């Protein structure tokens, strides 16, 4: 967990990118990684922890 002066951030478990929170995260909150667009669910705020949120997949014609 990285708590910069103004920004709370953590690493995206999907792509390793930096996921930033403009305000204090909430347990159960779903956010999106700005780099890979994956949905992440906040599972803990102290320490900050996120996991991949379950998502509905399209079959893309398969």
């Amino acid at each position, binding site marked *: 967990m990285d708590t910069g002066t103004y920004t709370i951030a953590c690493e995206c478990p999907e792509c390793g990118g930096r996921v930033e929170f403009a305000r204090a995260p909430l347990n159960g909150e779903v956010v999106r990684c700005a780099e*890979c667009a994956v949905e992440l669910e906040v599972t803990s705020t102290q320490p900050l922890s996120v996991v991949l949120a379950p998502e509905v997949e399209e079959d893309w014609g398969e």
Partner: protein
Amino acid sequence: MSVRCSIIGASGYTGGELIRLLLDHPLAEVAQVTSRRQVGAFVHTSHPNLRGRTKLQFVSPDQVEKCDVLFLCLPHGEASRSIEKYAGLAERVVDLSADFRLRDAAAYRRWYAEDHAASAWLDRFVYGLPELQRERLRGARLASGVGCNATAVNLALLPLARAGLIRSAVADLKVGSSEAGAEPSATSHHPEKSGTVRTFAPAGHRHQAEVAQELGAFELHMSVTSVELVRGVLCTAHVFPTRAMTEKEVWSLYREAYRGEPFVRIVKDKSGIHRYPEPKILGGTNWCDVGFEVDEATGRIVVISAIDNLMKGAAGSAVQCMNLMCGFEERAGLGFAGLHPY
């Protein structure tokens, strides 16, 4: 201070794109544009999108006066046969043809099946892809253009190649019909071409030489197929790496390589409609979008890149080169974000 630019061979598609870009460039003005067959005609007769944007008329190449930057958009072999003359006309020259892309005359002979007409000039040109040669392009006097298909492959593979992680790669390219230029032929006749998926270079495409030159030695295979697009290149590169890599490692490599690049974006989204690079949304832009996926079962890394062949693969990169050569902001004149939907 702005620069006066002229374009030799401006009635073709890349010439038209150059005029469009330079007319909107904050630090450039278009002085003269040439066409042997269109002498006296207004530019909009060849490039109807420019009607009302300029009253320029084509002049003969023999009428070109000295200028600051000269762009050469000539058929293969013509720039090399007249380079002494053209280099005397301008402080800086950007040649969009394939004549000065390769540094090695023997490689040129091997790939183009003829001796180079001005091989002493090969070393004087800098390969015109800023992502590869940015520092050499700053202040350079002579720059080559880039092959559109080479650009799609170069930018797809650059991070892995620089890290020495490619054992071999197979690049399969799907390309638009404007790659063939503005001259019609029997193969481009509408009843013959429409609806086709035509593999025209299963092996031996000349742009492969540019990739080998710029990215170094690894086993590379390229196949090129023309599809139902006017503009665009989609490269699907199957990379067999020297060691197994996780997707996060590839993310880290590409993020690091392209952080700060003004015209390369990583497109690999877990949601949304366009999850991987898509040439359709890049029309008219100088973007190269790059995405990837690791097949963890086999170790293969699939890297996907997309460009507009007439822009990042030709005129856009040429203007980006001019910006570096002249000390301008690299994005100048290249800010168009594209159209959506289109």
